[in-house]
């Protein structure tokens, strides 16, 4: 072993669930280490999903999904201010195109009421079309959920992690767990390429890999099946296609293909649902694109396909039970599962974190509140959100805020440098994109990509050839063949 480290609790997985747990447990006098296999947080299911704050009417009554969704939705209201989250409660619509579907909406409304969702109501065709004039004229009515909303999952996970770090949690990236050591039926620690970490409790928030992690500790009580979902994202110039989140009437297996605005004012359509045998398979497919285009056209007939700016695939972590798997392992003591977190996992994450803390308490972990706990993250400076006086003020403090690197989303060099040097800072080109959005706009990094590469190299003090796109081995450039014309990089 290269190093050894000793802690109370190891959290495996830096997605929305792992980071929310880290932040929740940071409220107590505990030593906590969070391990993420990738160079950045939230690179699995958290980075590619519908990014919706679900109201909570979908999940079967009394399921963990239902309970935690409604509680999570509530918790995000206060977390938005504490952690400065990019989140908006806009309301959502489930639309019906015939009387059978209207019946389903009535069932959904009732289920939602039983789940404790406030304010649900069925609205008429005319009321729907006033809100959303671009919807299909075939629509006969909709279920309106005022507590539905949209958020940016990546910065939510980052905000949880940053707050956890500010309150003493250690986050290690590029640190995959290669084994869990169990002694006498009890967890004693985890193996990683960065050394052995001694811990009595391991929380498994490993997303699609949660069953593999569980098996490392001899618990094979559940299986995770990856289920792919593909999306198409559209430019902000067509951002008023719909004003909120439009679901079709759900089928038994899926909430269906939706058309929604994003928190940043783009439009997306998707996802489809296809079980996959490969947990890493995030390829988009011709068939999948056709499927989501056809599905979305049933809601909005005139899709501005020429304004598409990117397509992506997310993978849902579906447990065989169909519900979330949140429990202390009955096989290995000290292993706590937070697995099978598919939709509405993003919304449920803060509630899952509360539940995990309660489970730890039941397991005999001493949950003494930390008196120094500070729930607040300092507000982010977003240049494009400031008025001219505000812009002038931050440029006066740091002239790099006067240099716009991303013209599509108006992101400054100052913001990029800050994102690299903040707690759990960006290490990759996509890491910058997910934090600040350069490369997420209409040029998709055509102009800013080379500049961001050179800024990363400069700030991290690494060669250009070591700058990566997102994953560990995703280097973007090679040195020129010797004898070529050498030009020194200087941005």
């Amino acid at each position, binding site marked *: 072993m290269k190093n050894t480290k000793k802690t109370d609790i190891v959290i495996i997985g830096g997605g929305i669930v792992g980071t929310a747990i880290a932040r929740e447990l940071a409220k107590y006098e505990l030593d906590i280490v969070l391990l993420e296999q990738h160079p950045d947080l939230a690179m699995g299911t958290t980075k590619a999903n519908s990014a919706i704050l679900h109201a909570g009417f979908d999940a079967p009554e009394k399921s963990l999904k239902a309970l935690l969704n409604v509680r999570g939705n509530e918790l995000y209201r206060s977390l938005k201010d504490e952690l400065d989250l990019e989140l908006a409660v806009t309301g959502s619509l489930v639309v019906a195109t015939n009387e059978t579907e209207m019946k389903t909406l009535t069932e959904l409304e009732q289920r939602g009421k039983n789940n404790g969702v406030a304010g649900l109501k069925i609205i008429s065709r005319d009321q729907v079309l006033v809100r959303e004039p671009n919807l299909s004229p075939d629509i006969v009515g909709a279920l309106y959920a005022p507590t539905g909303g949209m958020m940016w999952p990546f910065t939510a996970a980052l905000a949880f992690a940053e707050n956890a770090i500010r309150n003493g949690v250690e986050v290690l990236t590029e640190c995959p767990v290669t084994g869990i050591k169990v002694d006498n039926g009890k967890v004693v620690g985890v193996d990683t390429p960065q050394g052995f970490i001694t811990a009595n409790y391991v929380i498994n928030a490993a997303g699609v890999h949660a069953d593999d992690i569980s098996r490392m500790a001899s618990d094979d009580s559940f299986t995770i099946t990856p289920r792919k979902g593909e999306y*198409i*994202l559209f430019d902000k*110039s067509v951002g008023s296609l719909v004003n909120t989140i439009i679901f079709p009437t759900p089928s038994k297996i899926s909430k269906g293909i939706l058309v929604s605005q994003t928190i940043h004012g783009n439009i997306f359509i998707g996802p489809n649902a296809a079980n996959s045998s490969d947990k*890493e398979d*995030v*390829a*988009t*497919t*011709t068939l*999948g*694109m056709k499927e989501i285009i056809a599905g979305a056209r049933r809601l909005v007939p005139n899709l501005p396909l020429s304004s*598409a*700016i*990117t*397509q*992506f695939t997310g993978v849902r972590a579906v447990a065989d039970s169909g519900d979330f798997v949140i429990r202390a392992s009955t096989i290995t003591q000290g292993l706590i599962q937070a697995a099978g977190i598919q939709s509405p996992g993003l919304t449920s994450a803060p509630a899952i974190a509360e539940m995990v803390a309660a489970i730890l308490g039941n397991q005999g972990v001493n949950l003494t509140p930390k008196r120094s706990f500070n729930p607040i993250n300092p507000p982010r400076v977003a240049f494009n959100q400031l008025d*001219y006086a505000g*812009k*002038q003020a931050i*440029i*006066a403090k740091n*002239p*790099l*805020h*006067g*240099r*716009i690197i991303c*013209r*599509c989303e*108006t992101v400054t060099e100052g913001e990029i440098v800050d994102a690299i040097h903040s707690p759990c800072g960006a290490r990759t080109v996509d890491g910058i994109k997910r934090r600040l959005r350069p490369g997420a706009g*209409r*040029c*998709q990094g*055509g*102009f800013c*990509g*080379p500049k961001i*590469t*050179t800024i990363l190299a400069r700030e991290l003090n690494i060669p*250009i*050839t070591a700058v*990566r*796109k*997102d*994953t*560990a*081995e*995703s*280097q*973007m*450039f*090679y*040195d*020129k*063949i010797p004898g*070529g*014309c*050498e*030009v020194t*990089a200087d941005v």
Partner: protein
Amino acid sequence: MYEQNFQVVIIGGGPAGLAAAVSASDNGAERVLVIERDRELGGILQQCIHNGFGLHRFKEELTGPGYAGRYIKMVQERSNITVLLDTMVLSVTENKTIVGVNPQDGIFQITAKAIIFAMGCRERTRGAIRTPGTRPAGVLTAGAAQRMVNMEGYLPGKKVVILGSGDIGLIMARRMALEGTRVEAVLEIMPYSNGLTRNVVQCLQDYNIPLYLAHTILKIHGKERITGVTCAKVDQNMKPIAGTEFYLECDCLLLSVGLIPENELSRELGIQIDGLTSGPIVDQLRQTNMAGFFAAGNVVHVHDLVDFVSEEGEIAGKYATAYAKSEIGAVNKVVAVTSADGVRTVVPQMINLHEGDTLPIRLYMRVGKTERNVKLAIMSGAQILLEKKLAVAKPGEMIVVEVPSDKLKTSDDKITVILKR
């Protein structure tokens, strides 16, 4: 926030903006400002280190930086032209107030008598053409790769496939080959190349790089870095033909799938955009539908030769100055210019005839597909105003025709440019 005023403000310091500035100065503008977001003037020319620029304008074959250098020198020689580098325009208002930002001055405000848009264009991306597959490192637009290779000094791959045979794709095929990279293929979905013929010859044929016409990429493979692409032949409707699929191994995919004029500022302002060119609708003075707002270069329509970009900059610079000095006469006839029957785009889309106009008006056109032995005709109703024989008309090569102004004085209020077979 400091404030200044100028007679003519040009947004963009590429070839269109530079020519506009020189022309504004030479036509008597007293105070001219060029706002450029990069750290030097010249725009995309600075990364185009190959030669072939300036054959029309300077009767010489210059490199991109060489061509830019000529104009930068002309700008520097004119003391009434101010240049702001490393500066981004944040907004432009209807009353011609510009808010900009840079690290030195912070936020500042400029007022202008006339404004010329010369922001150029950007590249279409993979997302716009919806190529399926993974999203690994090593997939980038040809222009971004060109910047990394020519200005930063790094290679995006050692075994490259290029999708799209536009000029940047062709130039980058040669550039990568010269750097020792293996260029596996250039694929083009259309049955013809979109680039200049000379580039097909000099960049592909001379280097034995295969060009697959009527082919596209069906899937991108690779998890961290790209490992290959699945390609196929397409039919007349550009749909892949089953059974023609083949795999090309590569560690880099460059996309040269079209250019889009950058009109975010113009759109926000409410300037009318031509759906076919994606640029503002302009008249022969390069004035847009909003008085005092002019546009020139690739922001109006994508050019294949920089010489024409400079020419358009000169026109805009001259008449923006005339506007600023209130020297543009009253319009006594408006002629709409449209395209049909094989001609895809035409610029200018409007001709505003003024008292005493005598100069011929040059129309710049692009055809929709390659055609041989055709006649380009300018029609006023059933009447032919002008006809020109073309041995070959290609989408990749802009067609220029001069129309004598007296013919327009007697024409209908609408003229149409067509191809006659």
